């Protein structure tokens, strides 16, 4: 989001405090010196991670402090992971496999790439999953593990270290 605040000491902290108070994660703060309108006003771009339901409350609190939200860009699902599934994916209802993730509301399959070498042979597929947060991704992977067990897929998860 792009914020407009008074160019005086303590103003940036005043803008960032409500974000962290509400459990948001501040990823970066960019001072936009060139685009500053002047006359004691400062324009700042901040990239934050916050549960979407808290966003309206955050904007209200910023306004209470005299900070103007100029622009708001929202990427709902910012967390991305890629997994590989091996097995009889098509004949075990591929639509259902994808739905099990999509139905959660906090994660979805956004890309899929399939390799089907021959009829009756196992299919290998890459799924890209996006989620709201890292925790949601772990929950999505847990669901996928259950699906893999049930449909006898080999699930290859990414190593996060």
């Amino acid at each position: 989001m792009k914020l407009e605040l008074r160019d005086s000491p303590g103003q940036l902290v005043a803008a960032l405090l409500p974000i962290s108070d509400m459990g948001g994660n501040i990823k970066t703060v960019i001072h936009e010196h060139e685009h500053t309108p002047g006359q004691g006003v400062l324009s700042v771009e901040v990239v934050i991670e916050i549960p979407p339901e808290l966003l309206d409350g955050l904007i209200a609190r910023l306004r209470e402090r005299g900070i103007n939200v100029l622009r708001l860009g929202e990427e709902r699902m910012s967390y991305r992971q890629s997994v590989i599934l091996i097995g009889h994916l098509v004949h075990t209802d591929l639509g259902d496999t994808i739905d099990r993730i999509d139905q959660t509301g906090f994660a979805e399959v956004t890309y899929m790439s399939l390799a089907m070498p021959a009829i009756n042979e196992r299919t290998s597929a890459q799924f890209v999953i996006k989620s709201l947060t890292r925790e949601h991704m772990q929950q999505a992977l847990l669901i996928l593990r259950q699906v893999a067990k049930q449909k006898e897929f080999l699930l290859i998860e990414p190593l996060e270290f």
Partner: protein
Amino acid sequence: MAVRLALLGMGAVGRGIIQTVAEKDLGLVITAVADSRSGCIDPDGIDLKNLLDRKEKTGICGDVNISAETIARTAPYDILVEMTPTDAKNGEPATSYIRDALIRGCHVVTSNKGPVALHYHELSSLAKENNVHFRFEATVAGAIPILQTLMYNLGGNDILSLYGVLNGTCNYILTRMAEEGLTYKQALDEARTLGYAEADPTYDVKGIDAAIKLVILANTVWKKNICLDDVDVTGIDLLTEEALRLAEQQDATIRLIGEIIPGQNIYRLCPRIVPKDHPLVVQGSLNAIIVRTDLAGDLLFVGKGAGSKETASAVIGDILSIRDMDAGGN
């Protein structure tokens, strides 16, 4: 005075030890040796060149009336070096030999995963009661001194997690599938031809060997009390070459990774998608381990996980460290 060794097992590792003791002036003397069918004892030290020649010519190392059990119980030695084949189900007969030696008040060094994975707590208490040492560095990651490092050199650290490539055969197969586009079967056949895989590769490719190493790490480094059934194990035998190609498309590859997160009781071994530039992506039959600690930060270990000289290195390291600790009045 030279430290007297009794060797049980004359496979590749046993022969590696004998050669090293013969070639290097380490202050060690071998007073007893047993293979699966025979044994020999000489309180003044066995002539090692004759021993190796005899084994090569006749297939046995000595007198068929002398058993490994007899040696463990009655031969004169300071350290029992137990290198018989691993039995993952009950750890026998190795565990009995080790018990016999500890009860006699002799130190034990083993390269055998069975007794450590199954009976570490019992054997370690037995060693303590008898005021002797029980060491097993060679059981995990061959030449990499991982156990001593984690158990002693990083003392005072909380070791928060461990990730590792712990089976060279699987890593070789995955490397070849990724690099040359081989099928799983082709890569396995190649590994067999080169001697990296056993005639029956089940133990390696289904992940059992690497999972046993996770059990050893969990029970010794973190003093847990888990068994093989507590490890979530998936091998590499069902991987497809297409899966490796899909990983390649995202600049990643697939490796069989062991994972321990003791705080969450996670013990897992399974193929994982790993970025190609990740430090655990080592080539061929190498092993690699990363640990995360609170004081020392992240540490990476890479080295040969198998081979007669490499495993002998770990065994001899244990032997010499016991000797030096004893000399220090322990």
